[in-house]
């Protein structure tokens, strides 16, 4: 089959690789129909996430048709499904607590030592996201093996086209959980840093959950325009001092909740961010936490900090004094996608959530490498890229017979 493989920093290629096979009883194989490039794929592209090996197939936002099932899979051939990006077993302590992205059983024993060392306990498996999270092949491919297919995938009705449901795999539930983590109350103002796909879905979700107003912060004009279209007020951080603007816009109280939908590769020219960049180049810190710091300082006293943005390693100058003295609550984590699939599918079906407004480009899988470059270099024009396997016109979509899997 054809698949997008990671070869090194800023080097991804579409190559012919072996087809996936059923390995374990709960597995299923999908023929991928749509797969998106995620903002967090850029962290892999930029080489910020350790544990990548040349040849790894990327992609954790995908959907497709079931073509093969293991004996314990609950799926049926021909079903259209969307697959959550974290792999969850459904049986462990964490899955039973609905903390699916903390699953104890899906990171294979051989690959889970690294996160146990780094984070204290091993993290769950994730599709196409480095060997820290299991080294599973991702879905930016014609076919993909889905372990624990009895737990993750949601069957979607035929009348909803791919673009409407694809984002159930990651960014829609991630934006939703970010808003949920704000514990929104009547009259609340929520400030959102980053108007990428997660930020935009967080804005939509916060308003749906009853936020009085949402203030969105970015510097890409087209993304700010999308935020405005959703009903948010907007701030271009190049034009105004964000903290002062937020305080003034909220009568000196400050936003009740803040969302860092940016993560470890913050942009911007500020003293702390330049220091972080210099330090990360010399391996003294790994993550640039400019947005995180600004959000903690900007939020009102006793407010809530929600962090869907991806961080991986260590950072310094975390304003722990402000965090403690102001009595803040922070909630964060990889999204427990499984928890939100049914309610969000219902919101989509009822037309309460629009999932298509942010898609700027559709492209064949064959052009994935070019699309990664565009996604990296031109974030203003490329707000969300969806790759289509069927559009891969140059070669037929037939399964190709390749050498046996080792």
């Amino acid at each position: 089959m054809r698949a997008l493989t990671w070869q090194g920093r800023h080097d991804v290629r579409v190559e012919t690789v072996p087809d996936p096979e059923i390995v374990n009883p709960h597995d299923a194989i999908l023929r991928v129909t749509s797969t998106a490039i995620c903002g967090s794929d850029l962290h892999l592209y930029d080489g910020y996430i350790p544990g990548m090996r040349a040849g790894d197939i990327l992609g954790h936002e995908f959907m497709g048709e079931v073509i093969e099932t293991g004996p314990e899979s609950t799926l049926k051939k021909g079903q259209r499904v969307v697959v959550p990006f974290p792999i969850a077993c459904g049986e462990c302590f964490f899955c039973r607590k609905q903390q699916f992205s903390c699953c104890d059983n899906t990171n294979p024993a051989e690959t889970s030592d690294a996160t146990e060392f780094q984070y204290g306990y091993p993290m769950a498996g994730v599709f196409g996201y480095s060997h820290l999270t299991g080294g599973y092949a991702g879905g930016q491919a014609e076919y993909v093996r889905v372990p624990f297919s009895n737990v993750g995938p949601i069957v979607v009705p035929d009348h909803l086209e791919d673009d409407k449901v694809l984002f159930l795999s990651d960014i829609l539930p991630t934006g939703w959980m970010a808003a949920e983590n704000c514990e929104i109350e009547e009259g609340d103002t929520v400030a959102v840093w980053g108007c990428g796909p997660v930020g935009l879905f967080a804005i939509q979700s916060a308003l749906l959950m009853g936020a009085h107003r949402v203030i969105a912060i970015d510097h890409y004009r087209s993304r700010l325009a999308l935020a405005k279209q959703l009903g948010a007020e907007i701030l271009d951080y190049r034009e105004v001092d964000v903290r002062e603007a937020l305080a003034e816009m909220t009568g000196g109280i400050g936003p009740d909740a803040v969302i860092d939908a940016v993560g470890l590769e913050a942009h911007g020219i500020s003293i702390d961010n330049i220091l972080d960049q210099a330090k990360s180049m010399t391996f003294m810190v790994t993550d640039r936490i400019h947005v995180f710091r600004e959000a903690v300082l900007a939020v009102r006293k006793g407010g809530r900090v929600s962090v869907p943005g991806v961080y991986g390693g260590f950072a310094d100058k975390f304003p722990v004094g402000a965090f403690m003295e102001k009595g803040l609550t922070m909630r964060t984590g990889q999204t427990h996608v499984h928890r939100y699939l049914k309610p969000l599918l219902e919101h989509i079906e009822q037309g309460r959530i629009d999932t298509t407004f942010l898609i700027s480009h559709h492209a064949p899988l064959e052009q994935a490498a070019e699309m990664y470059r565009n996604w990296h270099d031109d974030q203003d024009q490329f707000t969300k890229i969806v790759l289509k396997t069927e559009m891969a016109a140059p070669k037929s979509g037939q399964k190709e017979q390749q050498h046996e899997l080792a």
Partner: protein
Amino acid sequence: MAEVSTGQKALIGAGVAVAVGAAGFLLARRSPDVHDDGHNVSDAPDHTWRRKTGRYEEGLVGRTVSINRPKQEVYQQWRDFTRFPTFMENVERVEDLGEGRSRWKVKAPLGSTVELVTRIVEDEPGTTIAWESDLDSEIQTSGRVEFFEQAPGRGTGVRLTLKYDPPAGLPGRAIAKILQREPNVQARRDLRRFKQLMETGEIATNASPSGRRSESPSEATI
């Protein structure tokens, strides 16, 4: 921002690491030893005790996991030693010799294998299984697995402790050196696989396609 090559970055990184390490070492040396033999108070399992305490035991490693299955069921599964190769990476085969005795074929360094015979020395159904190698085995080892109820909703606690005695002779010591280092990793990984098997009925694997010609671990990482 000026371009800094990967080599230079690595050099600076290494320099910083050495400096931090040296500072840490000096600070650690300055602190007095507060652990006094005979005055140990911690309620922790034996294998977690620090080297300088009276409770420390050389060559003892251990690991505890929680398994979302009834105690008796987990015990039953472990009681059949011939199933060990399904979740123990280093165990190639276990043969039941009857009366609690088993012959193990265990992977050793450099592609060789070691055989040993163990006998069960303690068997409390649903609670404890302990085994020891025969005195004439190539390596001396003993193991103990305990099963216990945990707080509500936390399933069964399974604690595996292993003890290796260094065998005599130079080659034996070389093997032992690796075996002393490995049991920790092995106990950790074997218990993870056992937990996966008990809770989900399968052992998680990332076996799936890649653009690599082989799965040699020496390939590029960042």
